[in-house]
């Protein structure tokens, strides 16, 4: 159906495999004053995100995934996201999310290491995995108490 078949090495880039194996900020943040849970009911991905906001600066962020409940894409995405937004202002983090979504929707690459997820574009069934952590971050920053699910988000 598609023209050139997408290559697996574009999806599972080394940086993604590395962050899957050794996720950064893979911790509960005890001092967190914002929390959010994200669910991808299709495949069972689940993330618990912890954010410590000082003013409008994300001074600490961490995430946990119950054993076995994160695929490589969702776990690496969460890991790289926490690296990208730590120390940033809320508005900048939201702008990154926008850039990330734009990239996955077929637009320009997101800045920095986030561009590693450009390969997800060719795997539509995995876009929700990549976006899951970002939806959780968005919910945490909004102070939403309800768990977010990828089904309530417009990723397509």
């Amino acid at each position, binding site marked *: 159906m598609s023209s050139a078949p*997408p290559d697996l090495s574009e999806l*599972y880039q080394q940086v993604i495999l590395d962050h899957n194996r050794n996720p950064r900020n893979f911790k509960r943040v005890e001092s967190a004053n914002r929390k959010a849970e994200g669910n991808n009911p299709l*495949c069972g991905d*689940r993330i618990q995100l912890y954010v410590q906001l000082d003013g409008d600066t994300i001074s600490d962020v961490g995430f946990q995934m119950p054993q076995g*409940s994160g695929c490589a894409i969702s776990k690496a995405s969460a890991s790289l996201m926490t690296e990208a937004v730590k120390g940033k202002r809320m508005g900048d983090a939201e702008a990154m999310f926008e850039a990330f979504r734009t990239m996955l929707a077929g637009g320009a690459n997101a800045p920095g290491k986030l561009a590693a997820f450009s390969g997800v574009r060719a795997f539509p069934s995995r876009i929700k995995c990549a976006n899951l952590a970002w939806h959780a971050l968005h919910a945490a920053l909004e102070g939403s108490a309800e768990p977010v699910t990828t089904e309530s988000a417009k990723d397509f």
Partner: protein
Amino acid sequence: MLDTARIRPDFPILGRQENGQRLVYLDNAATSQKPRKVIDAIVHYYTFHNANVHRGAYALAVEATDAYEAARTAVARFVNAWAREGVVFTRGTTESINLVAASWGRTNVGRGDTVVVTAMDHHSNIVPWQILCQEKGATLRMVEITADGRIDLADFGRALEAKPKLVAFPCVSNSLGTVNPAAQLIKLARAAGAVTVVDGAQSSPHLRVDVQVLDCDFYALSGHKMLAPMGSGALIAKPALLEAMPPYHGGGEMIERVWDDRSSWNKIPHKFEGGTPNVEAAVGLGAAIAYLEQLGMERVAAHEQELARIAVDRLSQIEGVTVYGPPDHRAGVVPFTYGDIHPHDLATILDKDGVCIRAGHHCTQPLMRRLGVAATARASFYIYNDLDDIDALVTAVRKAGELFGVPA
């Protein structure tokens, strides 16, 4: 084993190339592919016989009704139903079970009563009973499974001590492939005074089923898992039970007479078939049954069990692979995990080689919790699968291990 070289050309979709390779379709527990005869039956119906059924006083409508009712006869014969009138067409197993829960359940289950399901049930045989029990203030009792993936008969016995009104279980587990001792479970449940509901979604496509030998009260099946169109399915029930039950959907067709403030009901099974039915689906189901009967269900079952046995054997040889489900009494369903590779990633990697498997919770979240996994990968076989498909599966799984560097 079946002569797959003769069967495969009957399935047009298997001629499709996936990333330049042959399509290796191993998600048959989710849905089956359709043979040309089923596709042709649908086209033929719309080309020559389409009209609304049970109404028109013209030849075309009679032909459509005959086609629809012939499919009912085929379903009745296929599972050895108690009577043609005991075959209600539905959209599939989910609707069949919801029908029983809403009609029989609302009438017969009350506060303090117990309904029994098992931990290996599909959500479609759990959630309708949860809704019923919550509405009625009844208790839903979930029977545990054993470590090797069977219904725990000791716990089943304990559950029956509560004298449940209804016992529901899957004939074959969609997640584990376990072929349950259905006749034995039904006998025990019946002795405890329960009405029995058998989820036949995974047994009807793969095994010889005789509901009179099983002696259940309700048996639900989905057409789309047995070569027929999506939206085809049936509830097979003892006619006396259906006679006593209130309707499910109100509307046309299901009534006898309608007054301003009340109505009387049509005879069974029409009492449960309100609205214009999916005639195309029924016709396709009839054609699918004819195809399966020609192969013979014993041979279908033997073919799949042999494929599953070989697949379990070969996957188990890969260091780091865990196969779930019982060592014997297994239908053509092989659930597995591989090291710490998430099944979702496995499915993506296998897809690259044209191998379609399912990854996730398989609509059995209570079971997944008991297995201690969030998800599994699942290969499931059908009549057109062959040893080449298993080769492709095993090769692709090994590739995934290399890509992710699974520690040996």
